[in-house]
């Protein structure tokens, strides 16, 4: 129960911080915001690495491998495409 309450506390506070920070993003940057925040949601990669590397059973390793592939596309593709877009906004 205690871990649950701690986790919920973190969840609620992080949502709050998210609202406060993201409300200030101007509409002109909304597309990079989506792709950039999307790259951050690829944080599941951390869980995927553990699943793929624990080597407990063949099945979890396969699931982990798939998860690593998806999450890495998400992270690498997300940050790179965001960078590409933001460079266009900057160069003047």
């Amino acid at each position, binding site marked *: 129960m205690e871990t649950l309450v701690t986790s919920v506390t973190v969840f609620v506070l992080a949502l709050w911080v998210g609202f406060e920070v*993201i409300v200030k993003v101007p509409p*002109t940057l909304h*597309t*990079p915001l989506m792709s950039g925040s999307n790259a951050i949601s690829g944080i599941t990669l951390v869980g995927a690495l553990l699943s793929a590397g624990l080597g407990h059973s063949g099945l979890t390793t396969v699931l982990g491998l798939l998860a690593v592939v998806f999450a*890495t596309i998400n992270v*690498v593709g997300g940050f790179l495409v965001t960078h590409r877009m933001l460079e266009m906004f900057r160069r003047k």
Partner: protein
Amino acid sequence: MPDWLVNLFYLLASALFILGLKGLSHPRSAVRGNLIGAAGMLIAVAVTLLDRRILSFQAIVAGLVIGSAAGALLAQKIRMTAMPQMVALLNGFGGAASALVAGAALIEAQAAPGALTAQFTVAAAASGLIGAVTLWGSLAAFAKLQELISGNAVVFRGQHLLNALTAAAALGLAGWLVARPQQTEVYWALAAVSSLLGVLATIPIGGADMPVVISLLNSYSGLAAAATGFVLANNMLIIAGSLVGASGIILTQIMCRAMNRSLVNVLFGGFGAEPAERAEADAVYAGRVKAASAEEVAMLLETARRVVIVPGYGMAVSQAQHAVQTLAGVLKSRGVDVLYGIHPVAGRMPGHMNVLLAEADVPYEDLREMEEINPLLKQTDVAIVLGANDVVNPLARTDPKSPIAGMPILEVDQARTVVVIKRSLSPGFAGIPNPLFAAERTLMMFADAKKAINELVRNLSEAAVGA
């Protein structure tokens, strides 16, 4: 590395994510912000790889190599006009990864006595449900945006009932899993039904409502990651996931407000499924529409002091952004004040028009939001509507029975002259005629957006040579 040290690094990564998103509050700091976020991710991944529990690196290295190559390739090759599809795909992959990780964790937990706590199983069920909905909802959105399937709302009889039953089945399976977490096959059944739900829930939503759908799926991909954080009792996943969840929720709200519609209406409305009634369109347009040639419009532009360009999805379809920038350059060199009026839901995703114009080197200072540009339109000589329709339809103000009643619009009808560049009089997404096209001060240029703009540039240049 001891757990406490790992967690401190995770805290550092979380802080960098927040700082990174904060950097996105201005175009000047945004590149750095994105790099800060990427640095946070690098730290998180590096620290995880040092985890003592990892015994085999084969699958990890294979996954990282394949994923990085595919991600980098996508990011480099994708055209700016296809950015909505790209974001839809990335959302989906994030959701898929979360669902897979929760599934793997559930299988592993079977071996560890006492691991199947209520928090664990509820979170795993949530992760599987949201993750699968995100993946398949995003794939459906991708197929619509890429026009693999009809971009229009796909509606059929009994749709709401079917969707409600599918949602109930998904929730029922989630409940079953929580009660009997030893039956891992229930998890995969849950994922399968949720996948179906994702597709069914997305297909009734039409093309121009895509900004809402993509924002919502963005939010789901974050919430799925946060749910996985609950599964693994990992605070960094919870923090990063909820940041993204919050971001998607805010964007969803902004998009709904910009259409004066509730989220429920967007998700269940089947908006734009029925075509407009022909008779009504004839009554609005008959004998009142004035077509103009490029020469005539160019003459108007020559004497203008302020020109406002209002881009819509038509600009994206015809890839006209570079031509528009050339036209703006020609006009500016003649001392004309050129601004852009951007409606929040113009295009297929939030900020779609801004990215396209940035690609064509239009300075972001020239881009104005709806609230800023509307007061200026009264003192505008020529407003050029480029492939936009519903977002400039005055019926939103005047006809309370219209499907777009109360939607905030760009008030181009206040300008001295309105030039509408459009291929035909066909209705926009809302399926209603637009009285703007038949207004006293409106000239229609019936042409493809890019061709029309290039014609205008040619005429203006010839006039300059002649003078």
